[in-house]
């Protein structure tokens, strides 16, 4: 299963599920870890405290027992009268009764035992299974300057000595100063000392076990290692030399704290070679410290095991969750991708593309069904569109035919009367749509008289064109040689009004030019006034008689005007497609501009004038679409 192939929903779902569950999981695990760590620390702390307290109590009970012995003996030596031998026997018999002690000694201050005796000391100690008594003190054995003696004397209180070796036995001595009050003054007469072997200390301390490999140790007031499972450390090292060897100032500070405080707990990364917790308690009698050390990793073994369990479960859970999310995402994205492929195919135009089957009734299924509906609608729409387009194409082709017919109705061969030298005619019609409503016509009524018409049917397109055809046909049919333009207009108007239900109308200019005389008679049916260009006077609009547009009201009267044309004069008729041509700013071309163009044209021939006007119109419109048919009809009278 390639999840990255379906990047997007599947990947996002996978990532967000996995990441959020990892986050939740890690949070739970951490809080669990810290909670249980704290709990374990406290539990083990209590446990160790109880062990250490019971050990200290054991040590204390022995030490306290030992401390009583010299105190009892002190009373004896205060009274004079004993010989050293008698004192020695007393020491030995005391020793015999107290298994826990190694030796007992009494030593006197100079001249205190006898006035002439500088040194006086007697010592009874164990040797093998028996006891041995010896006296001590000489110039080579000045006991006054030994720790056990000197400390009790100078401190003026009982003192436990630092541990020391005597004949390979590790001992510590408890020395009690004995005073006598003489003449109101208290002064020292000697020291009673008891030596204890520290072996039994080791037994007590080393028998205390904490967790699997935790152990007890004992350090003296100076930090000297007195008991430790590593016997090489005993008496050779102090807490501080170990710190110094490790260049570990933090351990040194821990040592100082241990010697300063009554009890406490510290953790250090390197205590006697391990990351360990250290519990310590002061032994009140001799001011030594009992230490309990155990590796931190053991303390947290259970927690670590638990955490590994939780972690494995969590990781398996997260993997399952991830797989599930991928499967779900696949279930969604697979049909979606198929739908997307289909949509693309439909987009490319294949409306017969099959919509993929989606089982179920979920959103994806709904989407698939909507897709089907969309495709069907599209198909229907496209087929309708095809039909409509075909119809439109047919109409367009018909319109084009109609245009051709219309254009064919107009005379388009110029000059139209090549054998008549007295006149020239030129016309053009530029329809706005395919079929226009403008038209022009001209024909001779008899030998001399030329009838010409310029008309503009209201509206555009096919209706206008049909109406134009009718009008044009009527003009042709109704006009005869004896008629004047106003009569022709009246007759055509009446004919058009009959059955003109569509209320269409036509503006017409109709003139009859006598080619012999140059007389022009004309009538107007609401059309624009044509321009007359006199050969010697320039161009101007001709005066127009009144006259209503035709096709609107029956029996309307029209009147005639007449003017005489001289050879070279020209008449220029046009429709409003010229003067009302618009540019992009919706401004009209206007009759003034037309007049100007005609004036500028000067003595161009008729076709040239028409071309100039058309050119100026195109220039004026500046690509604005042509809104109306444009028609020009020019006639020049040349005379005989």
């Amino acid at each position: 299963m390639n999840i990255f192939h379906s990047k997007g929903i599947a990947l996002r779902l996978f990532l967000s599920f996995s990441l959020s569950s990892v986050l939740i999981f890690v949070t739970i695990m951490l809080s669990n870890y810290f909670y249980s760590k704290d709990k374990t620390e406290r539990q083990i702390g209590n446990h160790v405290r109880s062990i250490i307290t019971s050990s200290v109590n054991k040590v204390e009970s022995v030490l306290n027992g030992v401390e009583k012995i010299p105190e009892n003996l002190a009373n004896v030596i205060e009274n004079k009268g004993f010989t050293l031998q008698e004192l020695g026997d007393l020491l030995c018999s005391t020793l015999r009764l107290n298994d826990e002690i190694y030796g007992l000694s009494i030593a006197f201050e100079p001249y205190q035992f006898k006035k002439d005796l500088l040194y006086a000391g007697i010592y009874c100690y164990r040797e093998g299974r028996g006891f041995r008594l010896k006296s001590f003190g000489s110039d080579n054995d000045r006991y006054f300057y030994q720790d056990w003696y000197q400390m009790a004397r100078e401190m003026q209180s009982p003192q436990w000595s630092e541990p020391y070796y005597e004949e390979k036995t590790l001992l510590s001595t408890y020395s009690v100063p004995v005073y006598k009050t003489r003449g109101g003054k208290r002064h020292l007469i000697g020291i009673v000392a008891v030596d204890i072997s520290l072996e039994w200390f080791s037994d007590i301390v080393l028998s205390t076990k904490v967790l699997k490999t935790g152990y007890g140790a004992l350090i003296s007031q100076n930090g000297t290692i007195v008991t430790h499972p590593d016997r090489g450390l005993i008496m050779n090292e102090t807490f501080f030399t170990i710190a110094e060897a490790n260049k570990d100032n933090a351990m040194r500070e821990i040592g100082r704290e241990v010697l300063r405080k009554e009890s406490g707990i510290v953790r250090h990364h390197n205590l006697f070679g391990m990351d360990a917790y250290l519990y310590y308690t002061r032994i009140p009698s001799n001011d030594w410290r009992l230490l309990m050390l155990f590796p931190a990793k053991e303390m947290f073994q259970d927690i670590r095991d638990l955490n590994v369990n939780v972690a494995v479960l969590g990781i398996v859970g997260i993997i399952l969750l991830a797989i599930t999310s991928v499967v779900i995402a696949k279930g969604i994205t697979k049909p979606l991708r198929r739908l997307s492929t289909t949509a693309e195919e439909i987009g490319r135009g294949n409306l017969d593309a099959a919509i993929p089957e989606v089982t179920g009734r979920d959103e994806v299924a709904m989407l698939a069904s909507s897709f089907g509906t969309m495709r069907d609608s599209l198909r229907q729409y496209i087929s309708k569109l095809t039909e409509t387009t075909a119809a439109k194409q047919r109409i367009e082709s018909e319109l084009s035919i109609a245009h051709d017919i219309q254009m064919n109705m107009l005379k388009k061969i110029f000059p139209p009367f090549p054998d008549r030298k007295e006149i020239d005619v030129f016309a053009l019609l530029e329809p706005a749509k395919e079929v226009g409503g403008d038209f022009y016509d001209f024909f001779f009524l008899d030998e001399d008289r030329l009838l010409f018409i310029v008309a503009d049917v209201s509206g555009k397109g096919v209706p206008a064109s049909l109406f134009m055809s009718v009008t044009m046909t009527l003009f042709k049919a109704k006009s005869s040689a004896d008629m004047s333009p106003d009569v022709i207009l009246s007759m055509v108007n009446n004919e058009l009004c009959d059955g003109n239900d569509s209320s269409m109308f036509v503006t017409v200019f109709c003139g009859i030019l006598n080619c012999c005389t140059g007389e022009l008679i004309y009538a107007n049916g609401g059309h624009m006034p044509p321009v007359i260009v006199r050969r010697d006077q320039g161009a101007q609009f001709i005066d127009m008689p009144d006259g209503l547009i035709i096709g609107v009201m029956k029996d309307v009267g029209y009147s005639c005007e007449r003017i005489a044309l001289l050879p070279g004069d020209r008449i220029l008729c046009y429709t409003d497609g010229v003067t009302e041509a618009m540019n992009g700013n919706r401004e009209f071309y206007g009759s003034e501009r037309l007049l100007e163009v005609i004036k500028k044209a000067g003595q161009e021939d008729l076709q040239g004038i028409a071309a100039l006007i058309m050119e100026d119109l195109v220039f004026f419109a500046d690509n604005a679409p042509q809104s109306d048919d444009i028609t020009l009809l020019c006639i020049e009278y040349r005379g005989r």
Partner: protein
Amino acid sequence: MQPIHSVRCNKIWLGCYTFLLIISSALLFYPPFAVAKEPITLHKTRLILQWLPQGQFAGYYVALEKGFYRKHGIDLEILDGGPDAPPSEYLRSGKADFATMWLSTAIQKRSEGMQLINIAQMIQRSSLMLVVKKASGIKTPSDLHLKKVSIFDGDFSIQPKALFKKLNINPRIITQSPTPNLFLRGGVDAVSAMWYNEYNTIFNAGINEEELNTFFYSDHALNFPEDGIYIMKDFYRDYAHVACAFVRASIEGWEYALSRPEESIDIVIKRMKRVGVPANRVHQRWMLMRIGDLMRSKGKDAVGVLYQGDYNLVAKELYNIGLIKNIPAFEDFHISCK
């Protein structure tokens, strides 16, 4: 601790070594190559040190262990000193030909008529000092007036007594046991210490240096050069070359010890364990390095030299205190082997 891979290396070396040994012994027995490696007659002699084995004497143990004495024609046995073995007695009785001693001790012995001579002054600066806790408020030696001060017995007490006399103060003097324990328990206000020994013991009992004030006698015009090498005049007359060879070998030993402290401490500790005294590596390292400082306090070339100025100062102080009746002539007392 030895890394595991070195065991494998050792095996390879052992192989090579054995091979070389076989080859070289084969060559040795082949007459043209059989050359004696050392002088045929080694001078058999003995050295007595002031105290039990410790870093203070590293140079001598190292010179012995590394064969420097043999190289100089001496077959040496080192006798362990201690409370029961005063070096001057050993010299006098002939139990030893060479002895290390303090200059002050030697001058006294000489003044008493013992015909010993100094052939090398090893330690140039006095390391004896007084240590007080800052908390006691004692800032200068003058503040020790009427305070409890513990002083080592014997020649160690000469400088303190001279100082107190100079300062005109009267401390309550307690004869000091071999340990500073009484001081650590607050039984005395000031304790005597050798800079290379007890001072570090105090530090190793958890007292920080910044908690202490220290007064060196050398800073108070009482610089008594300490360890020197002594022989009897007669010995010098008969074996001058042996005496000077001994000095050269010893100085070589010291140079080696100070340049390779760890190896040297191993040698010292081995010796200490044999005698059965508690051995602490950190402490022995401190001792060795400080002894090095004290020996070289006047420069490397001064090792072995006894300066007349120092001699005169010590002799004068001894005379003033009344420990000697006459000041032996310097030229008679010191013979330079350098």
